[in-house]
């Protein structure tokens, strides 16, 4: 980073059709609150040019149609919202429990994560399911929650070559982050278990089980329990 001190919030034209508002470079609960507030204001005071809102750790990217509202006018619309972030109450977090089967048949990297950190697989399960995680945002792929904070004992580097297909429902660790792959997709994180829940369904509204600002707790379940829940999910 350049030596000149950057001032926040920072407004940047990321493209001719998007504006990036950055509240800081670090991942923190303070910036998460800023993001939640701006996201809420953008939805409660919508601009007809707005096309998509991308909340992230400490920034919000807003894409818009520059033929509907001139970029300068769109900038000032967003700046006005940022000036009154505290006008919006951040509602209490929703708690969501996610059942996870931590078994090596469903979590092929469970033993690696244990070995890498000098733990037993039971230790890994205990640590991973002992804390409450904040959903910082949903991003990357449909329904993928960025969760924090991973207990430091479980930090594990990503695979050097990502898997071509990670099964939907896989619970994984990547560096100091943890998350859930809601749908089958390529991925380089270490898979330690799987949830039978369908976390993404485009025919539901909202289509994702988890939303920005939720608090998640993982509940270890047995293979049998996993299979019975999976059967219940799959039944039409």
């Amino acid at each position, binding site marked *: *980073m*350049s030596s000149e001190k950057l001032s926040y919030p920072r407004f*940047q*034209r*990321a*493209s*001719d*059709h*998007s504006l*990036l508002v*950055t509240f800081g*470079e*670090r*991942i923190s609960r303070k910036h998460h609150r800023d993001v939640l507030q701006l*996201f809420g204001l953008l939805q409660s005071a919508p601009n007809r040019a*707005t*096309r*998509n*809102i*991308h*909340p*992230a*750790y*400490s*920034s*919000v*990217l807003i*894409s818009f149609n*520059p*033929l509907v509202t*001139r*970029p300068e006018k769109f900038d000032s619309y967003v700046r006005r919202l940022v000036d009154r972030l505290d006008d919006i109450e951040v509602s209490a977090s929703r708690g969501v429990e996610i059942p996870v089967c931590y078994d090596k048949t469903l979590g092929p990297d469970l033993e690696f994560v244990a070995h890498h950190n000098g733990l037993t697989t039971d230790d890994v399960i205990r640590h991973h399911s002992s804390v409450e995680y904040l959903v910082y*945002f*949903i*991003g*990357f*792929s*449909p*329904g*993928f929650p*960025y969760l924090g904070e991973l207990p430091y004992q479980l930090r594990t580097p990503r695979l050097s070559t990502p898997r071509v297909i990670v099964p939907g429902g896989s619970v994984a660790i990547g560096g100091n982050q943890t998350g859930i792959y809601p*749908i089958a*997709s390529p991925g380089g994180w270490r898979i330690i278990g799987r949830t039978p829940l369908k976390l*993404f369904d*485009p*025919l539901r509204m*909202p*289509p*994702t089980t988890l939303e*920005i600002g939720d608090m998640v707790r993982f509940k270890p379940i047995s293979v049998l329990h996993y299979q019975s829940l999976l059967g219940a999910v799959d039944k039409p």
Partner: protein
Amino acid sequence: MRTPSHPRASILAVSPGFLTTVQDLGRDHCAHWGISPSGAADPVSLRLGNLLVGNPQNAPALEMTLIGGSFRFEQPSIFALAGSDMGATLDNEEIPAWQSVRVRPGQTLRCGPMKSGARCYLCIAGGIVVQPVLSSASTHLLAALGGLSGRSLKAGDVLQCGAQRAEPPTKARAVNKRVLEIFFENGPIRVTAGPQGDLFSADSQLRFSTSTYTVKEESDRMGLRLKGPILRRVVDGDTTTEGISLGAIQVPPDGQPIILFVEHPTTGGYPKIANVISADLHRIGQLRPRDQINFEFVNHENAISLLKEQEDLLSPQHALQPVRQ
């Protein structure tokens, strides 16, 4: 062959082609669920095709990729092919692209490999009817949603079309050649500076805008991987994960840029050196593996005025002309 009631057409996919999906102009307001817009890779061609058959510009159509498919029309209808030239025939007679064509029941449209470019749209009067998902018909292949259950076309699929407008175009119409030349000129792809442009050395920024890049085979609707001179950062490491704009050009640690396209991840942590301007995004949709491209930086004012010019040309009075019989 006018019928008084303008029946709803249906078509049978005799063969699907290499990769054919139902697309409209995309799905907005879903990025906060991790869903990128998808939609036509070349929205300009889709809009022109829809103009030709008298559809709203957002009407769903079939996007064919690299090798077109074959389709049998079960009812009388009007269609147009917009995009790459695939040497199409109707019952073995050559038909022109960029022109509305009247079709009788039982006739078969056959499309072959694309002679240049990567995508062609089959637009049919009334549009393709599918169950909208999150307010759009467009197929998102990664998310497996929209279009035909989120998948590409298979042989034997039957596609229903919507009601044609009360007054379908009675005379054949074509897209103005001069307008096409403007839309698909061969010049450099124009870009604006990316949000992390300053993380790259001055040398690398210059290299990016003065070198030729080749589109790699591993390119799809999610992104186009490029091969060319390596772009180096002033400092290493990823930036904090943030939102990604359509057309963002990100640079992973290997220094080889990737253009993020219609099915892009909604967030990412690689720095972005530039972003393709809105008025050139449709040209990205016509790039195929091994194509060579150059980039040229423009400022935001230029980018917006180019977009406005494009929008003016997309009006029926500028884009269309009658076909001389």
